């Protein structure tokens, strides 16, 4: 361990200094292209979102698929159906947390969800995007489950609806790519959609980013909640923490 660590440390002297503007990573053609051309080509001020959803669209698509597979995998590993008689009956009930927590959560939940939707929808103008907003939205349901018990959260966001959301998110993303194919350009080349979206080629790319971000957000929301509910109940989905 110490040998590996000292080898790595001895390599750091060849690394660029902190905040070096002319380091290979910062001065290379790819990064410079992203910074200088992103707004001109896509009308999206947030370069991170633009690179994520447009230039590196394949990466993000399969990343979404990775999330989806992780969610499916957790369900496959943990989920048990039918009533399990080995369940101890004297567990803490599903009534949720105390009164104070319930009232606080009911006050704060709408704002969390609103902010999550804002982060998704405004992700290409300010910090945010599909993953971040999706996690926030998922966290709002987790908070609901923590405060009011999992049964209450499941009445809003049932297991079936979770799976449907996850699949619909993937389908939106992939379908958007296929739509580009149908319109005569490459898969996920959003500039193909300028004839059906308003505002020219640049705005078509901008709108397409929003569309795929919505798909990503749906999948992430669903998988986050599904992960929580399966992990906290050992797959029985009956009683929360």
């Amino acid at each position, binding site marked *: *361990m*110490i040998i590996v660590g000292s080898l790595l440390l001895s390599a*750091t*002297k060849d690394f660029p200094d*902190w905040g070096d503007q002319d380091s290979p*990573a910062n001065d290379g053609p790819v990064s410079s292209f*992203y910074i200088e051309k992103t707004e001109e080509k896509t009308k999206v001020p947030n370069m991170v979102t633009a690179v994520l959803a447009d230039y590196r669209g394949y990466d993000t698509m399969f990343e979404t698929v990775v*999330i989806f597979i992780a969610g499916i995998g*957790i369900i496959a590993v943990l989920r048990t159906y039918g009533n399990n008689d080995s369940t101890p009956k004297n567990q803490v009930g599903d009534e949720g947390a105390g009164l104070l927590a319930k009232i606080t959560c009911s006050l704060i939940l709408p704002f969390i969800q609103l902010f999550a939707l804002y982060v998704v929808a405004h992700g290409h103008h300010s910090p945010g995007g599909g993953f971040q907003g999706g996690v926030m939205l998922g966290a709002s349901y987790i908070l609901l489950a923590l405060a009011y018990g999992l049964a209450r959260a499941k009445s809003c966001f049932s297991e079936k609806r979770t799976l449907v959301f996850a699949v619909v998110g993937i389908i939106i993303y992939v379908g958007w790519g296929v739509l580009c194919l149908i319109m005569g350009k490459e898969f996920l080349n959003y500039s193909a959609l300028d004839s059906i979206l308003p505002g020219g080629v640049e705005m078509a790319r901008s709108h397409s980013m929003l569309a795929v971000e919505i798909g990503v957000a749906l999948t992430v929301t669903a998988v986050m909640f599904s992960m929580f509910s399966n992990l906290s109940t050992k797959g029985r989905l009956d009683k929360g923490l």
Partner: protein
Amino acid sequence: MDIIIASFIEEVIVPKFNYWIYVILMMIGLFAMITKNNLIKKLIGMAIFQTAIILLYVSVGVKSEANIPIISHHGHQEHVEHAQDENHSPKPEVSTDDKSEKGDHHTIDKDKFANPLPHVLMLTAIVVGVSTLGLALAISQKVHGSFGTLEEDEILDQLKPGGHD
């Protein structure tokens, strides 16, 4: 001796302190993954390891005097003033003349924005990290369900043919 240590810290560690922290964090994570017996502790080590790599990438993308990689329309005036201040620097493409020629396509000085590429890559890494961590937790929960323990040696004992089930 003190002078040697002080100059070592000043010249070697301070300009590269992000890499030092990354190496130290990564070694902590690797140590936990290799030596710890408990599966959850191994997972914590894995998470620390991932954090170290995220720190490495994001710190490579840092530029001094750069802002977040979001082009601001509201702070445009300030941007121009800033550009005039640094007109003597060898970056001639940032000048107010350029801007007036190209209309509202104002040129963008890449030194004014942090490198977006590491951020994008690390967004991917964070998401994949969450997925693997969730799946690993699920599997370890299942392991605990069938073996009654998360200690690796006890699990291996039970898996031996002669071991008690």
